């Protein structure tokens, strides 16, 4: 039996999480280094996965399959296609930066009880999330996926509720209340989604007698597994609802601003850049493959919702006064684009959406982490508390600007490629929706530049006058992200090569082909 | 008459016995529930159990019938009575309900459940009674023994373990481990002095009493009863009989009579404030 590479990518951070949690209270720094090393080792494994993955090969590769709960046909089945590889790489890539950015975020304020170990907990939780996200990307068994899709909520809950920004305008107590509110809101939204999905998972089992994604999809394609139209639609809705909450799609989005606002910047990145991607990824992998007809049936509604997300998220971002909230609404807008791309049912749309997931992860990480550095310096999240930072901390401002430019999809940076692909993909099938979505890019420019203008330019405010520029550790976080943004903007081919075959497969699952250009169609 | 029919139709004697004793059993059960005093409940229950023992016998369960009388009525019910003694024989429970709606709900559920059960039995096709004749051919006890030591041997062994566990459990629960050396009398008295408690021997009950019952508190000079005179167990059970009103009445009558005889004017009764009362 070959080495279970995929299992290793998930087990490594899981073991790392346990080990980190076990580090004694006094050895905080050791815990940090341990977490960092584990995340780097995971990254190495992810790179090995990427290298071993053959884009021209079988659909699912590096597969592992073991019986688990044989009574219910639940199997421990892992396998990756191009889309999963891309997201796996993204997750593994972002983790070291998240850990490095949160290096001092969870240090105990005062050295109180000897058993008090928030730092260890923080990093252990982050690694636990990594393990669960990775296995969600790899699972090809619906039940296995569901378990980790849900289990992810537990560490996330503690990360949101337990760790917040240090200084808070209304004092620690108010901050703590708001944090718990945000954490509970996050948990409730996602639990409701998850429960509905559980019902759908059970329903799927009763219909198919099987949990294996590949087998069900195969049976659907062969026609050996017939689902009544209404059954398929209900099941689809059950799955989609959970993913739409996670993604999040308007109007199920309101947990995200709260969660991102209250958590520390690295955790906010973890939420939006990594965990939420599971939702959009699952739409692509599960909704479309398992329920192709229902997906097509629901497409118009979903497209409209995605469109609303795009415009609505952007407009709300413009109206925000809190930096992190602004980024959160911007993310809602971007998730709208991703969902739009997925359900446009064109190669460009779906490749673009996958690429978008990766790029959005990197760009949001860059923007949010720099914003986190900024906030940690001034101790306020309010945009109005800043001004003229550019003068005192030019490198910080510069990196912030690049992160912002990536968010507004400036050509030459990675998000542009994906956003354009999504728009083109949508436009070829639904021109009107494509055009309206394009307004999103104008609004993106508006909220990004307004944010930059209000915080970084203008006369230097007294409160920021003594603000130090980025430190070496912070530069180490931001620089690779920016390099990656530029690289993927200039040369995204490595990713598209991996993603394209998988998208082709998905397209054939839903029996859709790209529309022909008008000129050819006329002939 | 075929054997089957014989088993099906019971003899007239048994029918008579059933109706009479059945009535007794139901009455016993009802009084178990509704008697105010636990002792009465226990006795009623014992009666019901004996009736049931007879029914067991009538149904061919000779061994069980005897066991029911010996073990259940003889041992278990006596255990109940012991506990009732410990806790207080005469203490009558108030049947006043304290939880809102509890009684109504209970009765409703009870009646509903009963009706359902009866309906269920009535609905079931219970026409064929094989009778225990064949099974008891080699003797009831032998038949049971054969089953217990073959088919049910594991259950039997486990039951044994259960009984031992129960016995040990009962001991653990009721046994109070002495964790320190018992105090000597000297130490006890020193302790008492240090705490400022009642130093002299406790007063005897029945002062000014109409009779010398132990459950009547002795009266203090001002006529109030002193609970110290009653044993602690009775006090805990709340079984101190309050006769102060009568005693005071007696006292008054006595004073009046002596005044009349001695032709004196009445004096104002003194108000005492005793530490003993304050500590109460």
């Amino acid at each position, binding site marked *: 039996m070959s080495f279970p590479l995929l299992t290793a990518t998930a087990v490594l951070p899981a073991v790392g999480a346990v080990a980190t949690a076990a580090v004694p209270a006094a050895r905080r720094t050791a815990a940090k280094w341990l977490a960092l090393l584990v995340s780097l080792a995971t990254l190495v494994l992810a790179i090995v996965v990427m290298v071993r993955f053959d884009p021209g090969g079988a659909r699912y590769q590096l597969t592992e399959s073991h019986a688990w709960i044989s009574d219910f046909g639940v199997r421990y089945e892992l396998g990756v296609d191009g889309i999963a590889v891309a997201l796996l790489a993204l997750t593994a890539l972002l983790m070291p930066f998240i850990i490095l950015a949160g290096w001092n975020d969870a240090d105990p304020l005062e050295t109180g009880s000897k058993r008090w170990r928030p730092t260890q907990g923080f990093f252990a939780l982050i690694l636990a999330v990594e393990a669960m996200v990775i296995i969600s990307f790899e699972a090809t068994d619906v039940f296995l996926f569901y378990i980790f899709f849900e289990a992810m909520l537990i560490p996330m809950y503690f990360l949101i509720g337990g760790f917040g920004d240090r200084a808070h305008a209304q004092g620690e107590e108010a901050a703590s209340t708001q944090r718990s509110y945000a954490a509970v809101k996050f948990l409730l939204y996602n639990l409701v989604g998850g429960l509905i999905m559980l019902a759908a998972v059970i329903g799927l089992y009763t219909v198919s007698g099987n949990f294996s994604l590949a087998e069900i999809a195969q049976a659907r394609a062969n026609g050996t597994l017939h689902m009544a139209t209404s059954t398929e639609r209900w099941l689809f809705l059950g799955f989609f609802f959970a993913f739409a909450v996670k993604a999040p799609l308007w109007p199920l989005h309101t947990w995200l601003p709260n969660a991102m606002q209250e958590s520390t910047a690295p955790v906010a990145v973890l939420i939006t850049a990594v965990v939420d991607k599971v939702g959009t990824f699952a739409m692509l992998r599960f909704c479309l493959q398992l329920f192709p007809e229902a997906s097509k049936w629901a497409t118009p509604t979903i497209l409209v919702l995605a469109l609303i997300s795009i415009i609505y998220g952007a407009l709300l971002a413009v109206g925000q006064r809190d930096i992190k909230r602004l980024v959160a609404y911007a993310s809602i807008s971007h998730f709208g684009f991703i969902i739009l791309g997925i359900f446009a049912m064109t190669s460009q749309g779906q490749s673009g959406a996958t690429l978008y997931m990766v790029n959005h992860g990197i760009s949001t990480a860059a923007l949010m982490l720099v914003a986190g550095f900024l906030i940690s310096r001034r101790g306020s999240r309010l945009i109005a508390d800043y001004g003229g930072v*550019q003068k005192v901390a030019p490198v910080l401002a510069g990196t912030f600007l690049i992160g912002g430019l990536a968010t507004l999809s400036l050509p030459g940076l990675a998000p542009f490629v994906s956003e354009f692909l999504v728009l083109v993909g949508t436009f070829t099938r639904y021109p009107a929706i494509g055009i309206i979505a394009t307004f999103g890019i104008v609004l993106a420019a508006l909220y990004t*530049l307004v944010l930059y203008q209000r915080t970084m330019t203008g006369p230097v405010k007294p409160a920021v006058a003594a603000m130090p520029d980025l430190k070496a550790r912070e530069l180490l976080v931001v620089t690779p992200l920016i390099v990656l943004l530029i690289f993927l903007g200039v040369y995204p081919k490595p990713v598209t090569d991996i993603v394209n075959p998988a998208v082709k497969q998905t397209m054939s699952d839903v029996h859709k082909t790209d529309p022909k250009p008008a*000129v050819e169609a006329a002939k | 008459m075929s054997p089957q029919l014989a088993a099906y139709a019971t003899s007239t004697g048994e029918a008579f016995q059933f109706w009479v004793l059945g009535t007794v059993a139901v009455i016993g059960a009802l009084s178990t529930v509704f008697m105010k005093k636990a002792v009465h409940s226990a006795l009623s229950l014992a009666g019901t159990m004996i009736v049931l023992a007879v029914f067991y016998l009538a149904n061919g369960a000779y061994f069980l019938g005897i066991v029911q009388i010996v073990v259940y009525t003889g041992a278990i019910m006596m255990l109940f009575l012991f506990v009732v003694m410990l806790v207080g024989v005469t203490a009558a429970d108030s049947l006043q309900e304290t939880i809102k709606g509890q009684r109504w709900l209970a009765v409703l*559920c009870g009646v*509903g459940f009963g009706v359902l059960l009866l309906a269920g039995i009535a609905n079931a096709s219970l026409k064929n009674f094989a009778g225990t004749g064949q099974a008891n051919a080699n003797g009831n006890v032998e038949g049971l023994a054969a089953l217990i030591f073959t088919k049910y041997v594991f259950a039997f062994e486990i039951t044994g373990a259960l009984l031992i566990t129960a016995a040990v459990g009962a001991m653990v629960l009721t046994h109070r481990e002495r964790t320190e050396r018992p105090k000597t009398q000297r130490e006890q008295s020193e302790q008492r002095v240090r705490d400022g408690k009642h130093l002299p021997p406790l007063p005897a009950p029945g002062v000014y009493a109409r009779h010398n019952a132990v459950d009547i508190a002795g009266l203090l000079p001002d006529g109030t009863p002193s609970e110290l005179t009653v044993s602690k167990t009775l006090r805990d059970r709340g079984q101190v009989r309050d006769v102060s009103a009568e005693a005071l009445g007696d006292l008054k009558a006595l004073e009046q009579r002596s005044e009349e005889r001695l032709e004196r004017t009445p004096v104002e009764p003194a108000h005492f404030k005793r530490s003993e009362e304050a500590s109460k």
Partner: protein
Amino acid sequence: MNAENLIALLIAAPLLGAAVLLVGGRRLDAAGHWIGTILSTTSFVFGVILFADLLGRNADDRTLMQHLYTWVPVAGFQADVTFRLDQLSMTFVLLITGVGSLIHLYSVGYMEHDERRRRFFGYLNLFLAAMLLLVLADNYLLLYVGWEGVGLASYLLIGFWQHKPSAATAAKKAFLVNRVGDMGLSIAIMLMFTTFGTFAFGPVLSHVTDASEGRLTAIGLLLLLAACGKSAQVPLQSWLGDAMEGPTPVSALIHAATMVTAGVYLIVRSGAIFNAAPDAQLVVTVVGAVTLLFGAIVGCAKDDIKKALAGSTMSQIGYMVLAAGLGPIGYVFAIMHLVTHGFFKAGLFLGAGSVMHGMNDEVDMRKFGGLRKYMPVTFITFGLGYLAIIGFPGLSGFFSKDKIIEAAFAKGGTEGWILGTCALVGAAITAFYMTRVMLMTFFGEKRWQPDEHGHEPHPHESPKVMTIPMIVLAIGSVFAGGFFSIGDRFLHWLEPITGHSEGDSPISAGVVTGATMVCLVIGVGIAYLQYGRRPVPAVAPRGSLLTRAARRDLLQDDFNHVVLVRGGEHLTRSLVYVDHTLVDGVVNGTAAGFGGLSGRLRKLQNGYARSYAVSMFGGAALLVAATLLMRAV
């Protein structure tokens, strides 16, 4: 080495400069400006080498292609990084790198005292790279990259003095307005993709005839929207005036000579599409005509020398767009005017910069006057630029503008008459406002006063490093037009790319030239009467309604403010409210409902064992009932 391989180096040189200067940090502060200038000049040298190579080829073999790599391959969507160097892009390359290098040189002096000079040069190099990418791209998507790239550079440079809120706001405004235009370009690309299955220049432009006219018109209008944004044409012109917040070299390079002309490039490059979509063409000419008058009127009313020049730029680009909208009759002249305008407008801006440099960064022309004595070189170069822009016979502007006016009449029919008349009127107004600028700045009495700190400006000539570029540009403004026009050199050079037709002018060329001259004289005359004969008041008079409107950019900003900014603010604010109360409220309401319900239910849990026993018993009863029912059924 093949000439093709040099193309990428054109872009690489300034890109390298930008990277080095922006990443290099403070270590490069001392040498940064020279690095920037050298790399920009390197690019120019490459440009000249390539130009020589092109000249050595046949007229129909002057298109060089360099395929670097495949950029975004997704199914039918194939975007390559391929460069195309033909006569049209060559013209732009030379203009961009040439004028760009001169302005780099000028900036060495102009920005000498700015502590962030290194970064300024980094941005300038970034701009050059993006602009070169724009003109060298072989497909619309790559062009779009350059298109937004110059927008970014423009944003960074307008807002270079970020500590001034006005500069930061102007930069943001420029970027946003441009984004609206960019939206047009991106939709146009999508439409091309759905129509032709590609967006590379070659296949799209050669298959135009296969597509329906409706689609082509749509593409054309969307491209026009993009051009309006980038080239500050009505209705997206409002950002250009504010963009003058940037340092003057920026205004000269980006907002006069190169970037703002990108729209004209786009239209000329997509000529095949417009040729097949007459409706779109008509709209282009209308936009051009409206803008040329609009810009000219705004230019007349501004007292800020840079804003007056900005109005002029708008107006001149209006000419170009008008010409480009005329189709093959006008393409060549649009580009020719673009080049000559590049020279003289850059020269004028540099002159204005020189004036400001000597006047403590004062921009109000009412506080200038009589400067010709103090700044002779600036005066002469500015004067030559002035003569060129008003179309003084023999200078550059005369040749190029005259041709455009002729071409407008040559459009034929009523349209031709209207457009030609507009162009003529524009020429008169141009003469008026430029004369006004000239008179108010260099003639008359000195009107400057000590500022609030008591410092009286001491006007002085700028250093050589600044005057040399001005002189070079002045030479260009004088001779470029003549050089291009003699023997129709420029026409023959560009014709293979753009095509050319003479049109049928209702009036002869001579008459048009005469009319233009008359307009010129009228414009100059009125200006002289108003500003040359009478002293210029130090405080602007209230003026007529039109003047006041023109000072406010013909109320465009007010319109934007009321409709877009206010409306947008209300919209976002109400949406924030809706999100909080309605969307969140529904969810919270549900939660509260469950909370209330559970509050009721928890009363059932009173802690009494007997109570629980009742529920158990009830449950058991229900189970029995259910069992019986099942059996009954």
